[in-house]
């Protein structure tokens, strides 16, 4: 029994089915809007206008998207190795700790172009460490990575609360957060790029982390599809048995994949911490790690798909803020529902419509689901 489903042409597999799944998710979300007594079509218009209507909206959309590209890539790298990293949230939180340590000690001495690389390394290292422990326990001690990473999210949260109400809090302050970073810890904004196109922007936090995210997306593509390590990871993800037979060390592959995943998660913290808030506060990740799961599933684990999905979720976050302003009965929690529906329909129920689509394809042209498709030619 190899795969329970026959092959479809590539464009249907990577375009049509995700699109159908996504549409169903949004239709159900629309029903929820009806349930609270609002017009879903007007809600959609407000949402899209809020996200892309004005320059400030676009900048905010891309700012949120930056965060989700990092977490989406993080989930995807682990998923290629068939590891479900739910720990992105905690790894990003601990990544913030790395940034805090670098910024608190060096922010008044170094310029941003020296501090930023240091902060990248620190955040990646701390995130990777938080991914390393569950990976080690999975590879060496056989504990389930999903459960361990969930537990590590809570351990990370407790640790950070402990540090932020204690050691990292400046004396005499009540708020559970670090002091505000100054000078070099404030990253350059990218808003001028959008202003080149004639749009006006009132203080939006879009910053150079967006470019870093795009570079990372490219590097992840390079890693997964163009390197030996990526090939080994995909082999392991497809069949651990085959990987073992081919002499690929299970321990090494699991550890490397989870550390890369954790590093990407940790780097997510750069965007809100150094690009926007300029401090590390309690719960600054606020669920972005979990959004990463939705983004990775929607992007079908491919960096291009992830960037697009991240922009879509950035749009939902920014547009959702506008929406809750215009329609008070739709709170920002609508995004959480949509997120859940996307995970449900694009992830858990991804094969729901497949048999029907196959039947339709087969009735139009039997060849398209037959031998030629397997060779990769498509319909």
């Amino acid at each position, binding site marked *: 029994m190899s795969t329970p489903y026959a092959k479809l042409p590539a464009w249907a597999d990577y375009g049509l089915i995700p699109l159908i799944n996504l549409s169903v998710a949004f239709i159900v979300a629309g029903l929820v809007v009806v349930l609270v007594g609002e017009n879903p079509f007007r809600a959609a218009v407000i949402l899209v206008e809020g996200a892309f209507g004005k320059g400030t909206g676009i900048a905010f959309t891309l700012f949120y998207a930056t965060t989700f590209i990092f977490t989406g890539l993080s989930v995807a790298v682990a998923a290629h190795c068939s590891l*479900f990293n739910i720990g992105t949230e905690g790894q990003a939180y601990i990544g913030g700790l790395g940034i805090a340590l670098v910024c608190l000690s060096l922010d008044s001495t170094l310029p941003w172009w020296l501090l930023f690389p240091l902060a990248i390394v620190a955040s990646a290292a701390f995130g990777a460490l938080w991914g390393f422990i569950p990976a080690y326990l999975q590879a060496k001690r056989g504990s389930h990575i999903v459960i361990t990473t969930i537990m590590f999210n809570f351990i990370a949260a407790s640790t950070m609360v402990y540090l932020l109400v204690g050691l990292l809090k400046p004396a005499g302050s009540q708020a559970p957060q670090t002091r505000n970073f100054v000078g070099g810890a404030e990253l350059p904004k990218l808003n001028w790029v959008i202003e080149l196109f004639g749009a006006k922007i009132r203080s939006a936090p879009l910053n150079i982390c967006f470019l870093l995210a795009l570079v990372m997306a490219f590097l992840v593509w390079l890693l997964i599809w163009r390197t030996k390590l990526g090939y080994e990871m995909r082999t392991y993800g497809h069949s651990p048995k085959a990987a073992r037979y081919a002499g690929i060390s299970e321990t090494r592959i699991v550890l490397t994949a989870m550390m890369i995943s954790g590093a990407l998660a940790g780097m997510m913290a750069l965007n809100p911490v150094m690009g926007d808030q300029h401090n590390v506060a309690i719960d600054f990740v606020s669920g972005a790690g979990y959004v990463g799961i939705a983004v990775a599933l929607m992007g079908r684990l491919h960096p291009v798909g992830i960037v697009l999905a991240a922009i879509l979720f950035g749009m939902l976050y920014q547009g959702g803020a506008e929406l809750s302003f215009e329609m008070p009965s739709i709170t920002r929690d609508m995004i959480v529902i949509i997120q859940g529906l996307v995970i449900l329909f694009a992830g858990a129920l991804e094969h729901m419509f497949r048999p029907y689509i196959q039947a339709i394809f087969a009735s139009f042209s039997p060849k398209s689901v037959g031998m030629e498709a397997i060779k990769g030619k498509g319909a």
Partner: protein
Amino acid sequence: MDIFIAIVQILDSTIRLSVPLLLACLAGLYSERAGVFDIGLEGKMLVGAFAGASAAAVFHSAFIGLGMAILMSVAFAMVHGFASITHRGNQIVSGVAINFIAAGSTIMLGQAWFQQGGRTPALQPGERFEAIVWPGADAVRDVPILGPIYSELISGHSILVYIAFLMVPFTWWVLYRTRFGLRMRAVGENPAAVDTAGISVAWLRYRALICTGILTGIAGAYLSMVQNGGFVKDMTAGKGYIALAALIFAKWRPVNAMFACLLFGFLDAASIRLQGSPLPVIGKVPAQFMQALPYVLTVILLAGFIGKAIPPRAGGVPYVKER
């Protein structure tokens, strides 16, 4: 004597705090023993809490509330079943999705229906489950040692508390003494064998998930209708995950589950009670450490450093009939 009273009080709040964990943990036991991983316990509890509190507030009846909590929680369990049994989707992904949908929809519907910032109206006396005072509880209160134990620990809880603890022997009986339990355990270890015997794997797993839904519904109702007089947003606050940890800690066995939940409940009660005041030998223990302890213990257990937790073998794997 003061220390004794303090201990009784801590144990009393241990019981109160471990009830939702226990119900959710037993709920998880049904589905995981049947081979369906369920990290959506948290979401189902939340839905139960919301449905229970809203129905109780609207219909002015605690029992209608409880019924609604169970109904909605089972409905969410069925979504999980539909995705992971019928469509053979990833069980973890489906559980994550359910947690999100529950977290978002309870707040949004609560805000739209009641306009109290995601809360439901405060429940009036007849709308929540009251404490049951056992006969003679007040009379023996002043008897040394046994008096406080009887009147504080055993008496004076709501009906859901007693249901939760009765569910432990009941679950044990179902699991080890009934045909359904035997088949359920088998389907979690080797579904192909059950299939060969002519029993529907899917239907068995669906029934296990219905049990899960019922129990998470009661757990949610306990949170919003006993512990709290109404629904507050995100009121499960990670209890579903602690229950999951307890389930692993208990090695998927009902009686162990009770002790694991009591332990985790005790940690919670102790950290509330201590509030940062120093302990005799160890000194001051940070509250965050006490909060993280259940998770740390579970990680250590899972890693096999104290005993070995071996999950049901077919857990997490969708069953595909050989053709």
